[in-house]
């Protein structure tokens, strides 16, 4: 929100009618379009079937008799709770693994400056550009050979391939903003490198760690192609894969339950996001600024 004294440009020169046409109206249309699918997802979730498929008697934009039956069906007649649990487990485990390896790597590249650190940094950036859609076929072969097929570990170990480059790159930028003098002081006072990292650098890098962690969490929650390829049995699936492969029975689409699945699969990330919007935005913009 606008604070007093902040430069506001020349917007004060505009009269209200003009502002409505050039600013509020287009903004309202864009925001409406961006939010409509979520509104539609939510109303469908709570709408009974006779309203869902009868636009003549019921206005589709409203819910006349809200119902929990779709949610009940989803939670008690499908493996949805199990998929949700798998997603949480895989996401948390791969995020922690990636954060740990990224902190170490970023510290080594940015602060230890070992021989060839710059080239390793460049290689990490290039790794960031390798898309999962060209990796999943050879990865499937490797996962199969390692005997990890259809297990949580197949995902926990492969998600870091896109999380580690991203987090390392972000944390490298963050470590750069921490004054090196602080570390030098500690080194002169006799602290070891590990102590410096643990007691000086990491506490100062907490905002960067949160940014990287939140972003890594949402990225692995959103992951689809690896989960679709490496997991086959229903009880090991993640929410995205389970929703698309198991909730559709032949030609019968249970739109109420499908939308409930989409809604509850989205809510955890949205809630987490809402608490850490600033961190999320800073990691998003930090990632493209370099």
């Amino acid at each position, binding site marked *: 929100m606008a604070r007093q004294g902040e430069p506001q440009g020349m917007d004060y020169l505009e009269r209200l009618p003009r502002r409505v046409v050039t600013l509020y109206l287009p903004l309202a249309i864009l925001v409406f379009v961006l939010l409509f699918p*979520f509104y*539609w997802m939510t109303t469908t979730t709570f709408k009974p079937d006779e309203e869902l498929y009868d*636009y003549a008697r019921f206005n589709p934009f409203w819910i006349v008799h809200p119902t929990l039956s779709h949610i009940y069906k989803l939670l008690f007649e499908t493996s949805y709770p199990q998929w949700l649990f798998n997603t949480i487990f895989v996401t948390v485990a791969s995020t922690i693994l990636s954060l740990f390896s990224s902190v170490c790597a970023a510290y080594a590249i940015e602060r230890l400056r070992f021989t060839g650190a710059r080239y390793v940094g460049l290689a990490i950036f290039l790794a960031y550009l390798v898309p999962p859609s*060209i990796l999943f076929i050879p990865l*499937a072969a490797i996962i199969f050979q390692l005997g990890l097929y259809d297990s949580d570990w197949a995902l926990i170990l492969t998600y870091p391939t896109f999380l580690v480059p991203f987090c390392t790159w972000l944390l490298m930028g963050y470590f750069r903003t921490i004054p090196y003098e602080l570390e030098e002081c500690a080194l002169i006072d006799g602290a070891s490198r590990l102590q410096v990292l643990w007691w000086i650098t990491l506490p100062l890098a907490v905002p960067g760690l949160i940014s990287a962690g939140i972003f890594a969490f949402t990225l692995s929650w959103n992951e689809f192609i690896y989960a679709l*390829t490496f997991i086959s049995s229903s009880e090991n699936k993640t929410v995205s894969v389970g929703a698309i492969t198991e909730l559709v029975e032949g030609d019968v689409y249970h739109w109420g339950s499908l939308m409930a699945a*989409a809604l509850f699969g989205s809510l955890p*990330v949205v809630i987490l996001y809402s608490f850490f919007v600033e961190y999320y935005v800073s990691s*998003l913009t930090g990632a493209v600024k370099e």
Partner: protein
Amino acid sequence: MMGADIRPIAVRRRWIARLADDRNFLGLVFMLPAAAILLVFLAYPLGLGFWLGLTDTPIGAPGHFVGLANFVSLAHDSVFWLAVFNTTFYTVVASILKFALGLYLALLLNRRLPFKSLLRAIVLLPFVVPTVLSAIAFWWIYDPQFSIVSWALIKFGLLHQYIDFLGQPWHARWAVIAANVWRGIPFVAITLLAGLQTISPSLYEAATLDGASSWQRFYYITLPVLSPIIAVVMTFSVLLTFTDFQLIYAITRGGPINATHLMATLSFERAITGGHLGEGAAIADAMVPFLLAAIMFSYFGLQRRRWQHGSQD
């Protein structure tokens, strides 16, 4: 106790302590977890992918080297060329739309507004929510019988019958592009907004005093300052759009009659659904040159603006 030991510090330290302070040794240890993950699960598969493209490997069994046979058969495969066309069309159209609408939204959000940070948080939602799950919502919005879009258009008297969004090739292409644009706008808008916020308002004030129109202010101040960020953002956007898989898989699975198959979905279908890992890998390999070209084009093409403007000064 301290005073008793008069030996030089360097001698007292054991070799482990010395090793623990060696930059190269420590660097190696610190790099180990990340390097292990990236070498085993990124670098090796990347190389293996090129090798698999040259073999006839089926799922779960070793294959034989077949040279360029996969690529030769792909060159005569009309579905493959259709996928190449679809991917190019999808990437070009969706990227242009995302850029135009995203920049427009960023410019709107950069103006004086109440609840600015709340709006910014809301606008980013489509990007945060899992793509597959929002794609399922789009699938429902595009339902042939119960599409809310068709219903609303008919109610307003703009249409007379329901649109078969996903049944006709061109309808389906535009439908998935719309869903992709919907998801991509927030990313472009929020990152460009961060760039816009760094431009000093006094530049615009000075330009206005010199008689610049709002279009001139945009073209001569906003665009040049923003162009480095635009180049990076659009490169990422092109990369993500070109390799898109989730959205297509969730909404159309490549149908109707392969009209929306992208190279990524086709390679999945051939490799995993069809069981021909080698052929699928060949399609994925074929994406690489296109991908590099797309990245080069968007990065250098957009970056060029900067030195053009720089050389004018």
